[in-house]
Each structure stands twice: as C-alpha cells, then as structure tokens.
C-alpha cells in the first residue's frame, strides 16, 4: 500500500515535471521592431476604425484586411483608404514575420498568421465584417 502510494506520488511529481517541460513559454513579442510595428498599426487604427464600422473594410480569413465595399466611402476618400489598407497589410505581414523570427522559428510565420486571423475576428466589434469561407459576414 505504502509502495503504491509512493509510486503514485512520485509518478505524479514526474508528470508534473513533464507538464512543466511541455508548458510552452511565452512567445517573445517585445522586440523593438515589433513595438514599432504595433505603434504604427495603433496610429493607423484611429483612421481605420470608422471604415470597419461602415463596412467599407473587413477582416479577411488569413489575418489581413480588405476593402469590402468601396461605395461606403466618398469617392474622394477611396484612394486614401486603399493606401491605408495596403499599409496595414504590409505592417501585419511584417508583424507575423517578426514574431516568428524573434522566437527563432521563422517557419512559424504561417501558424502565427492564422492564430492572429482568428483572434482579430474574435475581438472585432459587433457590426464589423469578416470573411468566412470566402463570403463577408457581419459580426
């Protein structure tokens, strides 16, 4: 009985140890480059916010943004919006790449991108549009 208890206890300790080993450490996401990209995206978001709300732009399935309905924007603003979307997407691509690189695993870029894709949509405000199986869906 005592032996059983001891074995149980020790194997539990062992499993705990293995659990600790397996518990993935936090992902490094605080390099100066990543911080700079975040700041740039944060500033741009102030301009993009109303476009998300009006349905002019939406979140894509692959972690980017796209113009959904250009007609929701006055003609004079459309060029500016296209530029914003382009810049946002290039920042996002750099962000995914930099996080993978900062963690020493450039091959993780795709998985980081798809993780973000899901999280952007989850955290989007009600009324914003996102892509699901190729179609635009209102949240």
């Amino acid at each position: 009985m005592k032996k059983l208890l001891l074995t149980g206890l020790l194997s539990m300790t062992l499993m705990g140890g293995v659990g600790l080993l397996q518990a993935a450490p936090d992902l490094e996401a605080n390099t100066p480059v990543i911080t700079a990209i975040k700041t740039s995206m944060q500033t741009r978001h102030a301009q993009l916010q109303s476009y998300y709300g009006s349905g002019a732009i939406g979140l894509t399935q692959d972690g980017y943004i796209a113009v959904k309905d250009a007609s929701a924007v006055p003609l004079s603003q459309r060029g500016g919006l296209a530029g914003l979307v382009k810049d946002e997407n290039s920042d996002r691509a750099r962000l995914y790449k930099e996080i993978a690189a900062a963690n020493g695993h450039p091959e993780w870029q795709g998985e980081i991108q798809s993780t973000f894709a899901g999280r952007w949509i989850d955290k989007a405000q009600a009324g914003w549009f996102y892509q699901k199986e190729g179609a635009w869906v209102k949240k």
Partner: protein
Amino acid sequence: MESKGTRMRRRQIEFGKTWLVIAGLLAVVALPACVTINIYFPAAAAEKAADKIIDEVWQLKQEQEGAQNPPAAAPTTTTP
C-alpha cells in the same frame, strides 16, 4: 513471521524497483517531451501573444480594465 531486518530489506528492494519504474517512465515520457518543445508550434502561447498585441493595437485594454480587472494597484495594497 518475518524478522524486522528481512522486512526492511524487502522494502529497500521494492523501493529500488520503484525507481526503476520511474526511470523507465522518464525515458519514455520525458525525452520525447523535450524534443517536442522545439518542433511543435506553441499554439496557446501564440494566442496569448496575439491577444496582447491586438488589445494594444485596437486599444481594447483600457476599456476592459475597468470592467474586468480590478485596478492595477490592488495587489500591492494587499501585501502585508
């Protein structure tokens, strides 16, 4: 009836066996675990990192703080 010495010895042998079992378990479970750390993508950690970045970029943190988290100063006031 076993003598006290025999019982002690038996217990020692059993204890030795236990360690053998543990060593076996360690080899079987812990070693592949060490290898997997470097191979598999840490999905949970990535989600956590993504959430943090999105909160910052969309500035969701401040809005949530009031509703979900108590003020940041709270833990320091509770320490004796």
